[in-house]
């Protein structure tokens, strides 16, 4: 496992890293679709294709001791955090070498060494956990940040408001990262929120907030770096509204009847990978051969992860009840 270091000022290598990290997520999830069609992956599968810049940009701002609380759409967060692709793929296939030993699946990826606290499939259910992780850091005077991802749907939940208030009231080191993809499953923000400017909600809790172009990974990385530094320096919780879009349906079950094709197409013109790739080409930092090499490396890593998952064993049924509590867990 390798956890990316704080972004710092990004040089050529740094910018290229962002591209590689986003492409890893994109190609990984594209392979997931194939595996889902082949019934190798089952259950719910929520893809973040289109939203990769949010995961990659924010993770660049975090250090190895910082914590992450994520959602059910978290393959990208997990990959960008440095969970091994092998352990994620094995988890998606329900294998014992999966990062949650096959007990979690796509929505519940965990890695305690990476301080990656899941994979929460209750919308807004992770926010109180993030507040508590930050409270533990506060009580022990650790200069650590807890990054908490959630979608725009979460802002309608009471847990969002309770957590924002508590974090601000107690001045806790939480970086709230709202990935606003405009839809809570299949219902648009405008149909669910009386106030669709989400940063105003953060302002109501006297929390510094930024609206960020969530399709521009450099913008995300910059905002996250600045916000995380402020949180780490004792500035209390901060709120990033990352304006993004998912190109695929909500899940593999979703027929996607609630969005105009033209809307999706318009957003595809702002594909974060294309945007950064074009910028790097324009500045001479990337050429076809370099891109081919990147794609080849990623394809190789994915092939390796798929092979690893295929070869992995399954948890014996005798261990069905293992890990419910500590008693009997250490066999």
């Amino acid at each position, binding site marked *: 496992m390798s956890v990316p270091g704080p972004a710092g000022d990004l040089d050529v290598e740094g910018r290229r890293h962002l591209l590689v990290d986003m492409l890893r997520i994109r190609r990984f999830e594209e392979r997931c679709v194939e595996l889902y069609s082949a019934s190798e992956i089952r259950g719910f599968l929520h893809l973040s294709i289109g939203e990769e810049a949010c995961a990659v940009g924010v993770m660049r701002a975090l250090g190895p001791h910082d914590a992450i609380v994520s959602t059910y759409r978290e393959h990208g967060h997990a990959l960008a955090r440095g969970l091994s692709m092998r352990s994620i793929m094995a988890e998606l296939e329900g294998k014992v070498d999966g990062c949650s030993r096959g007990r979690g699946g796509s929505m519940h990826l965990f890695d305690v060494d990476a301080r990656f606290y899941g994979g929460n499939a209750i919308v807004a*259910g992770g926010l109180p956990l993030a507040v508590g992780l930050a409270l533990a*850091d506060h009580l022990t005077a650790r200069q650590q940040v807890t990054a908490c991802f959630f979608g725009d749907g979460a802002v309608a939940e009471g847990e969002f408001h309770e957590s924002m208030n508590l974090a601000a009231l107690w001045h806790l080191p939480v970086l709230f990262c709202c990935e606003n993809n405009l839809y809570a499953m299949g219902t648009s923000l405008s149909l669910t929120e009386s106030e669709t400017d989400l940063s105003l909600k953060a302002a109501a809790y006297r929390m510094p907030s930024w609206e960020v172009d969530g399709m521009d990974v450099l913008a995300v990385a910059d905002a996250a770096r600045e916000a995380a530094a402020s949180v780490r320096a004792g500035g209390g919780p901060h709120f990033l509204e990352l304006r993004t879009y998912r190109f695929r349906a909500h899940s593999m079950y979703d027929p996607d009847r609630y969005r105009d094709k033209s809307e999706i197409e318009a957003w595809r013109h702002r594909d974060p990978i294309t945007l950064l790739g074009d910028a790097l080409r324009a500045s001479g930092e990337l050429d076809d051969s370099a891109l081919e090499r990147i794609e080849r490396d990623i394809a190789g890593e994915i092939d390796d992860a798929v092979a690893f998952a295929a070869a992995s064993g399954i948890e014996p049924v005798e261990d069905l009840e293992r890990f419910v509590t500590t008693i009997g867990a250490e066999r």
Partner: protein
Amino acid sequence: MSACTYREAVREAIRQAMLADERVFCMGEDIGHYGGCYAVTMGLLEEFGSERIRDTPLSESAFVGAGIGAALGGQRPIVEVMTVNFSLLALDQILNNAATLRYMSGGQLSVPLVIRMATGAGRQVAAQHSHSLEGWYAHIPGLRVLVPATIEDARGMLQPALDDPDPVIIFEHAGLYNEKGDLPDDPKTVAIEGAVARREGQDVTLVAYGGTVRVALGAAEELAAAGVSAEVVDLRCLRPLDSATVAASVTKTHRVVVLDEGWRTGSFSAEVASRVSEECFYELDAPPARVCTAEVPMPYAKHLEDAALPQVADVVAAVHRLGS
């Protein structure tokens, strides 16, 4: 030995735990400046300060969830929820996170959290402050559910609950806070599993927990006067449930009445009766009987509340119906 109340026993347990381990802290509504809605935490803010005795907003879900997160972060939180009725606002966090994270993460995460809450009726505070939902929580794998019925258990269960790497819920029956008793000057911790017989008997087993233990003991006293020897088993811990102790008692007495301040349908008493049937059916001389709260939202008027709750007379009558 020194005399103290159940309330003071809980408070002293919290104090000693906080003195022993700086990772221990408390949070909840009105636990600090107000002193605790049942005065359990009175004086602790002055002794430990506002960092470790944290008054929270009325945000059950957020502060219970923050307790879970702080436990994940290495602390040992004691979260107080005013009453079990209010805990429903935090049920998402308790079920979907506290009870689930260890399993869902393949054994990686640990949630060493203690949640204390008041439960039970008898104080004319009506239908949103009086219910007994311990059985709902006992339904959930991943939780330990404690129901201290005695001052010794109120004093002794907290430290082992904090030492448990998994989440523990402690239900304190609000009717017990003023109960008085003696504690040793150097009180010991107690086991946080296992039922015990609070009174030995030969003719019938009365199974009770939390607030109903004193009802069972009162009934046993009346039955003794009528020549019936009742054994009273205090469950102490609803999850994991020590059904072996219940079965051993029933094997001796051949009759059982289960008391429950919860509603009868789908209640914890149903689980106990079912275990008795599964584990010692052929020892029974009569079907397991139950005395539960009437299936109504708890009424305010005293005569109605009394009628709704398991009373000594109800238990005595149930025993006589079994042919004892």
